[in-house]
């Protein structure tokens, strides 16, 4: 099936995710599209960023050449400081995650299942992978948002009935934001609820690119970023 309209860019996915953040929330952003979300936080919303590298609160990426090896994010990028930070060790960084003290995490995914299972760490073709903090975030954050392209370049669905890639966590995903749709994962195995589609897309075209059945929300709307 040919796409009925262009897919959204990575920045637009990040922009849509950023509208989910509530004022004062503690947020952990994964590598890739999730990292971009910090550029689009709505005015009036102050967030506290958490990083597995052992910090709470931080500024934007440091300017080129200004990096300090003692101030990095979980992706190894250099950050700039802000007032009101806290540093701590890995045991504490993950105590915060596992203990339910992170309000929202945004993660990339290889696959998400109809029950919210997440697979995002292991490519079977490679045979070896990095788990990093993904499994901790999947079980620990109060809300897990997946931000990803709806399909890989090869076109097969990433949203599937059951994940075929090794799992990161079971039933942990709450919301999926992609370049063609926004889909809620209903609790207790209630399945997937299509709540928004990208401009020019619709129920059929999103469903055709999805490997699990979508329930259509009575409040279904075209995605806007106003």
């Amino acid at each position, binding site marked *: 099936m040919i796409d009925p309209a262009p897919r959204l860019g990575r920045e637009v996915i990040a922009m849509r995710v950023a509208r989910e953040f509530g004022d004062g929330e503690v947020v952990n952003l994964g590598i890739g599209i999730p990292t971009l979300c910090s550029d689009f936080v709505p005015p009036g919303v102050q967030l506290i960023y958490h*990083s597995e590298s*052992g910090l709470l609160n931080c500024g934007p990426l440091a300017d080129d050449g200004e990096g300090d090896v*003692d101030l*990095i994010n979980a992706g190894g990028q250099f950050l700039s400081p802000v007032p009101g930070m806290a*540093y701590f060790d890995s045991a504490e960084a993950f105590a915060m995650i*596992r203990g339910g003290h992170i309000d929202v995490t945004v993660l990339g995914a290889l696959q998400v299942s109809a029950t919210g299972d997440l697979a995002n760490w292991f490519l079977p073709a490679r045979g070896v992978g990095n788990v990093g903090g993904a499994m901790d975030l999947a079980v620990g954050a109060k809300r897990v948002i997946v931000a990803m392209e709806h399909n890989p370049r090869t076109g097969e669905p990433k949203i599937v009935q059951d994940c075929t890639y*090794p799992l990161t*966590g079971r039933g942990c995903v709450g919301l999926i934001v992609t370049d063609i749709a926004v889909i809620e994962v209903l609790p207790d195995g209630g399945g997937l609820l299509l709540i928004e589609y990208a401009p020019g897309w619709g129920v059929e075209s999103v469903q055709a690119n999805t490997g699990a059945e979508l329930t259509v929300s009575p409040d279904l709307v075209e995605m806007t970023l106003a």
Partner: protein
Amino acid sequence: MPIDKTVNSFTEAVSDISDGSVVMIGGFGGAGGMPHLLMLALRDLGVRNLTIIGNTAGIAAPTGFGWPDGVEPIDHAVLIENGQVSKVIASFPVSGSVSRPNAFEEAYRAGEIDLELVPQGTLAERMRAAGAGIAAFYTPTGAGTMLAEGKETRKFDGREYVLEHALYADYALVRAKTADTLGNLAYAGTSRTFNPGMAAAGRVTIAEVDEIVAPGGIDPERVDTPSVYVQRIVMRPPGSESGVALP
């Protein structure tokens, strides 16, 4: 006698590490918080069949992770390339890029190194358990995944948890900014990461530091690793405090 845990050289600091030792290596993966000179001394010592425990297994060379542009990274790869490592316990062992494998991945594919992959939070917690005399604990992390295969699980309040065990090491090589002669350590910024947990989990903990001060030189409120966890301290040469300029 006044307690002074200073040793005078990196060579001396690692001299009793032997073939088959289990060695923790501090830091997150980048330049900060990593005991570069202890790793080089361990390479020069040449002991083999080591198990190394760290967040990564040396990912900086192919990816530049956490290193300033134009600086040649030093990390676990110096030991792996030298054929000294038979097993790695890590959460992030390979390069983030499939097309740029690190020394570990090549050795792993060649069947030369075993891997125990552990979720990052579980790795940190297993070290803390070792340091704190906790034999094992139940964590929700990894439940229902392939990293829980073969492990005991148990439900508490309807949720599944995995039983994970304390993780010790014969030696912990850690990196701090400041030590006092008693062995109290203070770290800088995000370079803390696994260092305090390893310091507590290592039977012999050796700290590579930028400066050594007299007792009282570290604010007692700001000691991140108290002296009971540290057996030896060794100072980097002046001029290498930034973490990257090495002799």
